[in-house]
């Protein structure tokens, strides 16, 4: 217990010192470029220390906590490592460690390399903020940490602020985050007032003591506030704008762990502050989850900007996580703690898994961007020969995110399916039909994600390079490869060894529902994953993987028996008899997703424009201009009217801001009078 304290404090200290050192070097010293390697090393050390602290927090049966009084009433700098916090801290430290290793090479010659010391400093500050967000145990302290995290990540997002797109994305991010924080303020204060304390421990189960309407309102506000951060649809629009414009190591952390603060907050509120929420809350979370998952992947399919594609997939995976959470909320309201524990385990496991493979994919995209200087997939291709290691890691990430066996994405999606199936037996009301439907839509989401990653990997890495930059691409340096390799390894290990990892969730579900489920989820000497009654199923990723390896020997054996080995030649691909297939003949990302664009035309409302110039006959055009775009439905039908409304309101409010000092003094006087009246009456 003592060691956990010290590890935690030491890690935080490293982050704080790293932030200060980096800033100092940036402003006062000329050693800025050399310091970045040192800062990345420090970040790795800090991450390892925090990893140790989180493991300590998970192992201890009692919470590891301490507080520094601030001297101000209602504020205490109190920190607590309960199982939920420790789990998210563990996820943070794993990702931060990998990103720190990656950043050594990335900051040295990446586009983020112009202010390496400042980037390193901000990275440390953001990691410190994230650590505090996951561990703060006081409402005000939590909100302070939240703001540190938001502001530092904003500065990191706008690192390349010369581009207008970056500034726009950053602005959208900070604006929506502010709106979210506003809702969090109100929601958390409503709960804190009922508890009479801002301490998280005093707020355990406090939501149930509120009147139903207030409690529901507080939950709604907190769901929306954290939902902005998590990127749920329809509050997602900042995410595909901000994540792609950030430097890739930051994008990786943003999608991997920063948006998970929203998930952490939602888990904290739903399963700690509220001991029982009505069924509508669970239904809301489940439906938003399904919608986010499906629309997220559909929009991802239409992207050919590699990083924006990945950003949309973050929305999809947040949706899958929320399906688990929504299931858990519903099962709790039906009085099935074991099922709720399984659903929560599924959601939390997917949180970690998504962090790992999305971080890996963003780092892979960063390497590609670093090597080709473009994010546009239509200008890539053939990179698997030029960057074999990056391609392999990206492929592992792609298989994992598509939920294919035997990697980690499959395990958490399998658990989500089982939770959805079990939900059917949890109640006799009509609500139960929602679970299999949600499961079927999860299947659609997963299949579309597989299609999307066939596109992402196939167009980016396979076939011929489509541009001279892709032609000249070179493999990234050792540290960047090492950062990706560690995450790829984690994806494989968590997939094959899922059963040995599941006990991590026991203390969390114990705290939330009073029951740990890993014992009932694992059987057969730990090789088998088994979902509880009433719908049982078993799966063993480890044995599936072993069998896959064993069975791929069968073809070799057949070949040896009948085949004749010598006749294997290389030749050109089939070109319909007209020699000279070039990169121009290749399928493009836009073409690949065309069938889905047409099938879901009602959603996308695609618009295309073809202009052909010809001299003699329209059949022999001299040049063709093709333009295709889809309608951003949420921006157009929800945010544009909202923005117009706000602007209209602002214009009408301009009347009271005449610029006259007397008028302003009069306003202050009137306000004072009104307040006095209010105070006297109240």
């Amino acid at each position: 217990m003592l060691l956990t304290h010290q590890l935690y404090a030491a890690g935080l200290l490293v982050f704080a010192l790293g932030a200060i050192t980096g800033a100092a070097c940036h402003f006062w010293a000329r050693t800025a470029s050399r310091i970045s390697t040192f800062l990345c090393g420090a970040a790795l050390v800090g991450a390892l220390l925090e990893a140790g602290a989180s493991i300590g927090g998970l192992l201890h049966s009692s919470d590891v906590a301490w507080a520094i009084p601030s001297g101000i009433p209602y504020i205490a700098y109190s920190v607590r490592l309960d199982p939920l916090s420790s789990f998210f801290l563990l996820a943070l430290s794993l990702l931060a460690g990998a990103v720190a290793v990656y950043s050594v090479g990335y900051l040295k010659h990446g586009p983020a390399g112009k202010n390496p010391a400042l980037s390193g400093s901000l990275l440390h500050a953001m990691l410190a903020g994230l650590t505090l967000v996951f561990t703060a145990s006081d409402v005000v302290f939590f909100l302070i940490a939240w703001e540190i995290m938001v502001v530092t990540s904003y500065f990191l997002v706008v690192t390349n602020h010369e581009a207008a797109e970056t500034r726009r994305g950053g602005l959208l991010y900070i604006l929506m985050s502010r709106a979210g924080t506003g809702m969090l303020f109100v929601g958390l204060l409503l709960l804190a007032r009922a508890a009479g304390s801002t301490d998280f421990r005093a707020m355990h189960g406090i939501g149930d003591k509120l009147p139903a309407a207030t409690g529901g309102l507080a939950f709604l506000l907190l769901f929306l506030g954290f939902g902005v951060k998590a990127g749920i649809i329809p509050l997602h629009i900042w995410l595909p704008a901000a994540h792609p414009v950030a430097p890739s190591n930051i994008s990786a952390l943003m999608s991997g762990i920063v948006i998970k603060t929203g998930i952490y907050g939602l888990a904290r509120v739903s399963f700690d502050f509220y001991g029982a929420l009505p069924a509508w809350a669970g239904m809301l979370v489940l439906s938003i989850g399904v919608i986010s998952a499906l629309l997220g992947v559909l929009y991802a399919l239409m992207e050919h900007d590699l990083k924006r594609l990945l950003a949309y997939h973050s929305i999809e995976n947040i949706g899958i996580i929320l399906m688990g959470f929504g299931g858990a909320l519903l099962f709790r309201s039906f009085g099935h703690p074991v099922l709720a524990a399984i659903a929560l385990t599924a959601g939390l496991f997917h949180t970690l898994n998504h962090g790992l493979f999305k971080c890996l994919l963003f780092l892979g995209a960063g390497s590609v961007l670093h090597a080709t200087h473009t994010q546009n997939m239509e200008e890539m291709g053939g990179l698997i020969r030029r960057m074999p290691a990056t391609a392999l890691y990206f492929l592992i990430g792609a298989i994992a995110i598509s939920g294919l066996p035997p990697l980690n994405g499959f395990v958490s999606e399998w658990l989500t399916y089982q939770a959805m199936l079990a939900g059917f037996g949890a109640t006799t009301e009509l609500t139960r039909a929602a679970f299999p439907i949600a499961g079927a839509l999860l299947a659609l989401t997963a299949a579309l994600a597989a299609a999307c990653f066939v596109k992402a990997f196939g167009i980016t890495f396979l076939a011929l390079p489509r541009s001279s930059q892709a032609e000249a691409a070179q493999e990234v340096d050792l540290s960047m490869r090492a950062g990706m390799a560690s995450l790829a390894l984690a994806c494989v290990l968590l997939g094959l060894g899922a059963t040995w990892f599941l006990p991590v969730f026991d203390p969390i579900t114990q705290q939330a529902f009073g029951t740990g489920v890993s014992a009932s989820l694992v059987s057969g000497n730990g090789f088998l994953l088994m979902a509880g009654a009433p719908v049982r199923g078993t799966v063993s990723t480890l044995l599936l993987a072993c069998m896959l390896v064993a069975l791929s020997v069968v073809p070799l054996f057949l070949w040896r028996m009948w085949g004749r080995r010598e006749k294997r030649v290389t030749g050109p691909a089939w070109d319909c008899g007209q020699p000279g297939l070039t990169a121009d003949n290749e399928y493009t990302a836009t073409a690949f997703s065309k069938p889905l664009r047409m099938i879901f035309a009602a959603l996308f409302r695609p618009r295309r424009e073809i202009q052909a110039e010809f001299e003699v006959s329209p059949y022999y055009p001299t040049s063709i201009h093709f333009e295709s775009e889809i309608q951003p439905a949420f921006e157009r039908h929800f945010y544009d009217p909202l923005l117009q409304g706000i602007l209209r309101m602002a214009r009408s409010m301009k009347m009271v801001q005449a610029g006259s000092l007397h008028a302003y003094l009069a306003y202050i006087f009137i306000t004072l009078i009104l307040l006095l009246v209010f105070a006297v009456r109240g």
Partner: protein
Amino acid sequence: MIGQIALVMVQAALVLLFSPLIAGFGKTLKARLQTRRGPALLQPYRDLYKLLRKGMVIPETASWIFPATPYVLFAATLLAGLLIPTISAQAPLSWIGGVLAVVYLLALGRFFLALGGLDAGSPFGGLGSSREMTISAIAEPALMLAVFTVALGAGSTNLSTMAQAAVGQSWRFLAPSQMLAFAALFIVLIAETGRIPVDNPATHLELTMTHEAMILEYSGPYLALIEWSAWMKQMILMTLLMNVFFPYGLSAGGSAGAMLFSVILFVAKLAILALAVVLVETLNAKLRLFRVPELLAVAFVLSALALISTFLFGGRG
């Protein structure tokens, strides 16, 4: 343990050796219905032997994904074949993965096959990959919902348990939820195995191909593996459909006579289903690609109805 391994070997041999016969039977039957003579019943075996002995041409633009694909596809499909109950309700490996694992193993094979299609850089491969991933994606919700409906009735996603739950109830397939789920899965079967009206396995006209376009660059032994995988997949899906809905003759062990009876029934069931598929193929024209979603939407609606009737008529409806 030894018995387990023996069972695995027997089932692997069954899936490997029997699947080309079903394909051959289908082709012969289809030719006869169209008053053609058609290829011999055993032609698929000859094709396999021939292809395995041939040399092959690897596209010069291809990477290691191209040669890796046939192995992954073959292993994943064969493994899926070991998870399903065939002549006995107890599949040899059903305990390491249920119906979800079967669906996802097939998806793993398809994932690599689509990458293999893109790897050569020829436009046909990309075209096939794109269409294959699209069709399978929109077939997925119907497939899963129908599977869920059956799983809910059986109380498990484990295929052996699902088949065993059905064994005792001879007339269960007459329940509305079962019939609707069967109809939905039948449509999915047509789509997933690339049959008319979704895809034409016999076509080599570039613009109408789906599966064939994707594997256009493969030749020799690799092509043999891919064709074989496709036949195995067809057999797996057909077996799944028949054994889950009509679990007759799924004796759990028993005497030699009972075993023989099971084998005969198993062959008869697959033959009947093959006849149904061939009838659909013969009586319909291929749909335009963008009409396929409507067909699969029908499948989804059917499985949703199956689910609702489960809800209305109780868990075992």
